[in-house]
């Protein structure tokens, strides 16, 4: 467990979610282990007694999340409702409390996976592994970021920006790190069965390093001889070694039952196009911009945009399609693959970006990055009106 604690302590920092060594991480098997102990761990220890859980992460998030949280908790009541689809699917809602009291904290965590306490931090937990606590922490940060920028754009359009919102926006915007320049080359394809694992591992790492995926992660695949090599469900794209499933395209083996929930979507792209490599990330401004729609107030599918948007919208040349994770009646595996034909990529409403290309991951990554850069630029253009 010690090793896992260290791992997630480092990951929180490396993903820009917390300051270095800020988090308190505790795990419990027969005994409680903390990465460090202080007054707060004494208090949090009581959570282990009250709740049937095995791990806790508690930390003030890094900037700009911290400023966003302070602002959002001031303006929302006790619950923040995430706008993006994945967080909505997995976390439902983000409860907040101003009260750093163990009983209050326990009562909220009895029902939900996370709790935001402005001025103190975010608490998340796992029942099986600190990985759950980490993923939830990452999701909360992603969700509040998307919500803050979405709200701002919406308020701007309706001309209802308060001074405080404006001030916060300027502060947060000044803290956004620029996206990296893609001035290097990833492994050159086409890949054979031996090389594909390394190539996918490399591509996964670069997506995470470039901050193009948070939350419940993305997925990545490559096609060789009618076998789709695809990242496993819930795998971290920066740790793909050992977590890639080869799935025959005719379903003649179910060994890939652990493959990404978007296997069907990837497969459909391979069946319909000449592509051999697919990347899927959750770049923030693409997600934010996908939810900015002028028709929203008059649309008959208001509040169902993520599954029923009828407009065939675009950000410049990039289509935006509705669709949910997985294989349900509104699954994105039905909407996204037809839209990607002949395009650099597709944005799925409130969720993320898919890019596909023919040879290796270079072009797919380049497109993922450039779509996000374009969306960010476009976002700031729209907020300047």
């Amino acid at each position, binding site marked *: 467990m010690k090793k896992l604690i260290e791992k997630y302590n480092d990951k929180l920092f490396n993903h820009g979610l917390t300051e270095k060594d800020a988090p308190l991480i505790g795990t419990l098997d027969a005994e409680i282990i903390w990465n460090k102990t202080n007054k707060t761990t004494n208090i949090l220890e009581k959570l282990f007694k009250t709740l*049937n859980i095995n791990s806790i992460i508690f930390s003030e998030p890094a900037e700009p999340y911290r400023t966003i949280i302070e602002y959002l908790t001031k303006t929302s009541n006790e619950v923040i409702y995430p706008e993006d689809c994945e967080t909505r699917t997995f976390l439902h809602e983000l409860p907040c409390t101003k009260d750093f009291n163990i009983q209050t904290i326990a009562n909220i965590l009895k029902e939900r996976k996370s709790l935001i306490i402005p001025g103190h931090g975010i608490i998340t937990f796992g029942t099986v592994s600190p990985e759950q606590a980490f993923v939830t922490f990452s999701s909360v940060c992603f969700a509040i970021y998307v919500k803050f920028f979405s709200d701002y754009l919406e308020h701007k359009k309706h001309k209802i920006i308060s001074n405080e919102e404006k001030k916060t926006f300027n502060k947060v915007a000044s803290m956004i790190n620029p996206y990296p320049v893609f001035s290097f080359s990833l492994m050159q394809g086409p890949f054979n069965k031996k090389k594909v694992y390394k190539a996918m591992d490399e591509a996964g790492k670069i997506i995470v390093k470039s901050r193009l995926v948070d939350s419940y992660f993305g997925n990545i695949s490559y096609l060789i001889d009618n076998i789709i090599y695809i990242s496993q469900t*819930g795998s971290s794209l920066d740790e793909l070694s050992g977590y890639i499933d080869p799935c025959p395209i005719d379903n003649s083996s179910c060994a890939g*039952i652990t493959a990404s929930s978007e296997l069907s979507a990837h497969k459909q792209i391979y069946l319909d196009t000449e592509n051999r490599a697919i990347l899927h990330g959750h770049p923030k401004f693409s997600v934010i911009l996908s939810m900015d729609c002028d028709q929203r107030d008059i649309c008959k599918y208001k509040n169902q945009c993520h599954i029923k948007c009828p407009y065939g919208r675009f950000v410049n040349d990039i289509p935006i399609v509705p669709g949910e994770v997985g294989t349900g009646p509104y699954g994105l595996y039905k909407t996204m693959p037809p839209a990607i034909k002949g395009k650099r990529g597709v944005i799925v409403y409130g969720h993320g970006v898919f890019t596909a290309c023919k040879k290796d991951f270079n072009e797919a990554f380049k497109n993922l990055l450039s779509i996000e850069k374009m969306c960010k630029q476009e976002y700031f253009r729209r907020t300047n009106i």
Partner: protein
Amino acid sequence: MFGWQGKILKIDLSSKKYHILTPDISILQKYIGGKGLAGYYLKDYITLNWHDPDMPLILLTGPLVNTLSPTSGRMTVMSKSPLTGTIGDSSVGGSFGFSLKKAGFDGIIITGKSFNLCGIEINDDNIKFTDALSLKGLKTNEINNLIKNKGSTAVVGPAAENGVLFSNIVIDNHYFAGRNGLGLLFPSKGLKYITVKGTGKTKTYDKESLKKARQDIFRLTFASPVLMGELGISNFGTAALYDLIDNRRMMPTDNFRKTRFNNACLMNAYTYKKKFNPKKGGCLGCHILCKYITEDGLSIPEFETMSHFSALINNNNISVVMEANKICNEIGMDTISAGATIACYIEISNKKLSGSDITSLLKKIGYAKGIGNELGKGAFRFAESKGKPESAITVKKMELPAYDPRGALGMALAYATSTRGGCHLRSYPISHEILRKPVSTDRFTFKGKARIIKIQEDLNAIIDSLTACKFIFFAASLEEFSKVYTSVTGIESSAQDLLKAGERIYYNEKIMNSLNGFTKKDDDLPSCFFKYPGTSGNNIDIPPIRRTEFIKTLENYYKIRGIDINGMPTKEKARELELE
């Protein structure tokens, strides 16, 4: 009352009289339903012999059954296990639970013994006892054909009549209350079948919030590759696991002497689907639908059955697997125990069995003929009688299912701590160790597993009490199901509140087992897993389990569970859980 009907039908078969129990809401809140409530009613009788007329046979649904809740078609059957002597229970699908609720009952408790073989027919509040002598010796499918117009059916076959210690109760011809030999409770009460039909409803407290919670759960299941993905169980049945378990080199082969079966890739779910072209179906109230049935009405075997009737007994012919499955279902006996007992027989007798040897041996077991009479007592008793106890791969005398514990150490601990003997479903660590849900854990370490196993046991105890399906928890969690529970019953609750009830329910079972003399020495695995490695290869090493680590983890589990060093429940913990 919302959710529960608040009525349990208590039948005494000696007198053919019945009355209605109306449990107090405080009892329902504490024990929820299904397995939990059944445990509450069983506890006072648990030290009796399983064939004592006073031993209750309990069929109980939960508050979610017959509502809009996802996977709400299940029911628990509970009594004392003839096979293990532990508490015996089984969660079973089909439509029996639904129909019971419609008839106005949360469950049935049966005691006494009918002088002549009888049936029970429930039609709303009309309870009829019938003469079933003419059904004696008939196979489960034959009986089902004769009575299925009377509603949902629960029957036993020849195996139960002939004393097979792993006989099943068969629900609606395709669903099995298996593993613990509960089928034997029917003949011990002079009972051959039960039918139930009803026209009532189960009241829901808040339909709108139930619909919302249901939508949240649906969305999660569609996002789950294991459930609804291309290669998931909705598309292939649980047979989908076969390739994966092979791939992870943990498929019990040749009576657990190896963990890799060379022919596995030719006998996978895809092959069955192609060869038998089955249609999809499932329990009432479920949208996952993992049951596959051929045009001739034959079930495609579940993963465990596929695996034990191929790898474990070294059979390369999938038609033989289909036939073996059919025989077990018709005679009414547990496929896992049947397969494992035959594997034990093969090892001890040093024989190689052909396909027809296998099927004829199964019939001999079901009809207690020749060697079959000995094998019908299960692997443990058979191996003991031959002076080769090490050939029985059992825990608490129950045969292990198709996950080799050397390939998933959480599973090793979970087999040992299960309250009904060698069972994979009590904690189902395969979920995180292999299927990556809710997240993946390292399958080759015991670190952290003691607490995880305990928490997941509590979780599954509450699932079997609600009563929902364990599979849906690959995607959803109690966070969503507590909303369902509250919407249905109107009782405020949370994920952690329900988990606490699960802890109480499971601890109650530990207490019952301790009353029957079960201690630490019973919470153990067969010695072969500590002595011999599995079949390593393809960069996967399957070493033997380190006994010292196993023992240490078991002791950690006791500490976390609130059990003393000898494996015995404590008064303090019982009090804390309000079980005193």
